[in-house]
């Protein structure tokens, strides 16, 4: 191993170049991007829900990045328009995800805004879709004999309901649902927003 100096200089140079182009320049570019018009910062409850989302590993199965029509039929799946950089201004860190074992969730708040639906589904996904492979999250709920005033009772079909009492959502479940309801990036995007233009390289409108 002679000539170690030039080798290490070259290696460090390549690393520095890659860091510059893949980390620093995009970082500068994205940091100057204002939020998509109409996008609101998360509330305290939604932020708590976001922590529940992270803690329960939702990100391992659900992405938060609808793709453009050239790359995947996400728009026809109802997952919403292709995401742009400014959609994630308030997400630090973003929860883009890489796996799509389940559907994309970036617009779940727009397509399934029902709190009741979300609570039932979190308590027992099979109550809605018998083929669903999503885990149930019963520990976000508790079974009470009688709902106290202010309790949110979850509607559960008979075959999944507890024998006695009612299913009541714990605060964590309500926070999580509040976060899911806030996931709505259906607002129109400015023409100049930073985005991935897919494979559409002939510029012809399709």
């Amino acid at each position, binding site marked *: 191993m002679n000539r170690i100096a030039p080798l290490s200089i070259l290696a460090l140079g390549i690393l520095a170049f890659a860091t510059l182009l893949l980390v620093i320049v995009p970082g500068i570019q994205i940091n100057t991007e204002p939020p998509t018009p109409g996008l609101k910062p998360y509330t305290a409850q939604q932020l708590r829900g976001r922590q529940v989302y992270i803690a329960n590993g939702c990100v391992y199965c659900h992405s938060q990045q609808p793709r453009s029509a050239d790359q995947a039929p996400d*728009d*026809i799946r*109802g997952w919403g328009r292709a995401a742009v950089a400014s959609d994630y201004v308030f997400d630090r860190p973003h929860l883009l995800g890489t796996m799509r074992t389940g559907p994309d969730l970036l617009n779940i708040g727009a*397509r399934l805004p029902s709190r*009741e639906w979300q609570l039932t589904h979190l308590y027992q996904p099979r109550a809605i*879709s018998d083929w669903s492979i999503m885990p149930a999250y019963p520990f976000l709920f508790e079974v009470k004999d009688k709902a106290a005033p202010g309790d949110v009772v979850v509607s559960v079909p008979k075959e999944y309901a507890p024998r006695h009492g009612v299913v009541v959502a714990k605060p964590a479940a309500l926070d999580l649902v509040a976060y899911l309801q806030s996931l709505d990036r259906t607002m129109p995007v400015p023409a*100049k927003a930073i985005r991935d233009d897919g494979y559409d390289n002939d510029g012809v409108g399709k």
Partner: protein
Amino acid sequence: MTRQARDNRAPEETFEPYEEHRGIPLPVLWIAIALALWGVVMLFQSHSAADSGITRRASQLSTQTGQTADAGAALFVANCSTCHQPEGTGISAAIPPLAGSPFTAARPEVVTQILLHGINGPIRVGDRDFNGHMPSFASVLSNEEIARIGNYVRKRFGGQPPELTPQLVARERERFADRGPWAGGAEIAGTVDASLAPQPPTVPARIVPTDAATRHLVNDGRGDAWACASCHGAQGQGNEDVPRLAGLPAAYIAKQLGDFSSGRRDNDSMRVVARALSKREMAALGRYYERLSVPSTARPSLGGDLARGEKLALEGDWENKVPACFSCHGPSGFGVAPTFPSLSAQHPSYTARQLADWAGGVRSNSPVQMMEKISGRLSAEDRRAIADYLATLPPVPARKPTPEEASNANTAR
């Protein structure tokens, strides 16, 4: 390699393996250089793609907002001509003519108010009476677009100078912000321009009250069914791939609920809800949503080609055996009760999804397999184009209950 050769290689303790310096073979260099050149070309191409993407979106945006050269004429063709006809002749006994109509020659506020709120009721144009429904354009056209259309219509059919400005339209929007459609020519003559009198008398609409059970089902749900409004919105306006229900034919809604319940139409969430409903409740929900008149919340969002969508909706693509959407769903996409749902102001994600489902065999509950066959002949681009185009249309004006329905509801209580 033979056994012989291996035997010959006696282990040499002193031997250190090393690599002799050998140049990279030329072909490898060739490929590397060719790939590098290719990469550079690709970089430039994708860069120009990003630019062209931006210009394309900008041009789409400007056509959508009608900022083209002869915007008034284009907006008239796109928004008015399916009913009032390109020459403004209207349709005998159904749609009032614009040509020679006193309404186009009246004060500029008249056309503005009609465009903003629509008309639900009798109206006299010349010596002929009409009793129809015109949609409200307030939710799909901007003040500037309404001013352009208004000026075009008043100039072409009424010979009036361009007196509408976006400011005037904005003022008129404010003036009757919360009102519904005009209840006929008499109300317009009485409120906006008295010179339009005489107009046929307006029969006051008998409001059919929705029973408390249906209201409860819509707004609060039940132990075994989520509230309709929790997904479809407080006014049945829908969002994304949750469809707009307001203004859909009652019988169509009831049929779909029945199909969800029986499994003829596949949707897990709707199956849970529909199985909890009785036939009576399904029918009641249908009647409830049919009568709702709600501003459009749909916007083109799939990047579809609106001109292509308009062509498919109005003329079809007969070479591919695709009839015009409106040849069955009604000449303005307002639907034909009981079988054909209204399409206008429906959310593009929902429309495109349904077309894809029909084409792919996921949904198969249309009469005579009509939609299955037609959707199958549409490309993915065409499906997006149609869905986006339909989202630009004004919402269907709510149908007034017929006198029998009104009396039925009253006696039922």
